[in-house]
């Protein structure tokens, strides 16, 4: 059951929309909906993947963020050059805490910022020469890199530099993949297009590199796609798959390497965690190599058990037994976690507003703890994501697409959730309003949250945040002032 009735939720949406001018109101109304689990398709109820309205506070990123920050960045033995002015690379460096094993600066490079640092003269005369020089310099200073990707920032597209030509030349010279990625920030409406561009560039420049070469296959080869190892997520997922008898050939792209990506076409099954950012490459591999793909969800014991069985159904009895064995092994520990935290969290309401996967994926984990998600929404999802969300969310709950700062504030004030899960841009606003808040993009410096081990951390974190006594002592600074003024008067 939702916190509000269907009518009340609809009234709330109307009230929140009232402040907008008429044209903006009409546009924003299409992005807000009250969930109806009966619906088969979200198409008629919610519009998504549209340009944000000028003048509102949106939480979205850009195509460069989607490509460099999400897909290419975590590949540990490749160097991603942020080609353009220095800021984009510097502020996107290591922000997502994609953990990896290796010696940074020697054989792994995720946490470093490589940039061509555009100046005025590069804009006027073009930056191709600088890029070529930069690649040479990288090769001299970091000879253990396995490949280079050139991530374009806005100016590169604006001045029309030919990064493809430079990359091709460099690739021939170095005998390594040098991948030009046309992910200028102005492309598309959000980071979502960056994921797509990054997937396409992997497809064009990396994926078929080892076609026809020998590879020692087993019947149990799988690849993890769309797990960026935030706080160790991919590791917590990988051990479960290995325990049930599968061989994980590749991790895309958290703690992943170039060799793993090149070997992916040899696997039997692609396991897709983040559907939004990697479905493109899965679809391509399904067509070209005949590899089926499967969406799975490793948040919370209920969903994990469901996913493990679904994965096992693609293999023989050996793996099916393995899945049951893994579930049986971890169930007592999970029951302990639930017994400990459920009494402290039971019946609490959560509101979510995250990127392109978690607004629906973590619902199961909250439900395992007896909590209820009363509102959810995506920054950059498409309609296929909402189709999937409708089934996972309760009836008459609130769903918002590309929510604005104003809408989020008002929804929170009306629904009064006990916990909010969203990003860093929302975090301090809600802190000041006195609401318990978890930053759900990179797990608020905690993690992992995937897998059975992750669920224990997840439950503890939620309890620590929600039942922290500090929230009652907080009062928004703007409310304080009012009180003081009243006193003075």
């Amino acid at each position, binding site marked *: 059951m939702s916190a509000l009735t269907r009518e009340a939720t609809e009234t709330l949406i109307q009230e929140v929309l009232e402040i907008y001018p008429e044209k903006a109101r009409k546009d924003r109304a299409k992005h807000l909906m009250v969930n109806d689990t009966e619906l088969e398709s979200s198409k008629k109820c919610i519009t998504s993947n549209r340009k944000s309205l000028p003048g509102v506070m949106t939480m979205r990123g850009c195509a460069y963020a989607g490509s460099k920050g999400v897909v290419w960045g975590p590949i540990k033995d490749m160097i991603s050059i942020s080609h353009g002015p220095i800021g984009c690379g510097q502020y996107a460096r290591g922000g997502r805490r994609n953990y990896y094993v290796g010696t940074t600066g020697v054989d792994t490079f995720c946490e470093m910022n490589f940039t061509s640092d555009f100046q005025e003269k590069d804009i006027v005369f073009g930056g191709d020469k600088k890029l070529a020089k930069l690649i040479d310099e990288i090769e001299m200073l970091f000879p253990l890199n396995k490949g280079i990707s050139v991530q374009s920032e806005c100016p590169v597209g604006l001045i029309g530099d030919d990064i493809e030509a430079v990359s091709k030349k460099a690739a021939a010279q170095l005998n390594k993949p040098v991948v030009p990625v046309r992910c200028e920030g102005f492309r598309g409406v959000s980071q979502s297009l960056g994921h797509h561009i990054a997937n396409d560039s992997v497809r064009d420049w990396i994926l078929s590199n080892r076609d026809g070469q020998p590879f020692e296959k087993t019947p149990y080869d799988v690849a993890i796609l769309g797990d960026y190892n935030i706080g160790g997520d991919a590791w917590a997922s990988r051990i479960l798959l290995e325990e049930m008898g599968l061989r994980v050939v590749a991790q895309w792209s958290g703690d992943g390497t170039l060799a793993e990506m090149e070997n992916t076409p040899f696997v039997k099954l692609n396991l897709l965690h983040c559907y939004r950012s990697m479905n493109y490459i899965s679809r391509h591999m399904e*067509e070209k190599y005949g590899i089926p793909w499967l969406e799975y969800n490793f948040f919370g014991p209920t969903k994990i058990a469901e996913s493990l069985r679904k994965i096992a159904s693609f293999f023989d009895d050996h793996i099916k037994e393995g899945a049951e064995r893994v579930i049986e092994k971890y169930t007592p520990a999970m029951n302990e976690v639930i017994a400990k935290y459920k009494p402290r969290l039971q019946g609490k309401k959560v509101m979510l507003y995250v990127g392109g996967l978690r607004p629906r994926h973590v619902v199961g984990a909250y439900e395992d703890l007896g909590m209820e998600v009363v509102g959810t929404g995506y920054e950059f999802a498409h309609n296929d994501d909402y189709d999937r969300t409708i089934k996972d969310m309760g009836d008459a709950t609130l769903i918002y697409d590309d929510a604005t700062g104003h809408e989020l504030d008002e929804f929170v004030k009306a629904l009064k959730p006990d916990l909010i899960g969203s990003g860093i841009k929302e975090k301090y606003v809600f802190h000041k309003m006195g609401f318990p808040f978890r930053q759900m993009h990179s797990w608020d410096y905690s993690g992992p949250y995937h897998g059975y081990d992750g669920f224990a951390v997840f439950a503890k974190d939620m309890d620590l945040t929600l039942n922290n006594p500090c929230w009652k002592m907080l009062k928004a600074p703007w409310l304080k002032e009012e009180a003081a003024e009243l006193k003075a008067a």
Partner: protein
Amino acid sequence: MANIMIRRSDKGYVFYMPKRDIEDSITSMEFDTPEKWGGEIKLGNGGCYYIEPQAAPERLPYSVRARRIDGVE
């Protein structure tokens, strides 16, 4: 003209357009025999596309060029 990808699910053909991320079921296909395959296809969302009739692909999913006759965005 746009590239689309046709897949098979347990409920029949599925239409996918990578450029716009539109995924929907195909409710009807004009020709669906091994020799002649394609023609007008109707989608679950009401859209209608045209694929030049051709021999059926050996394996699905299959990428093909399609023309929009009556599209729903």
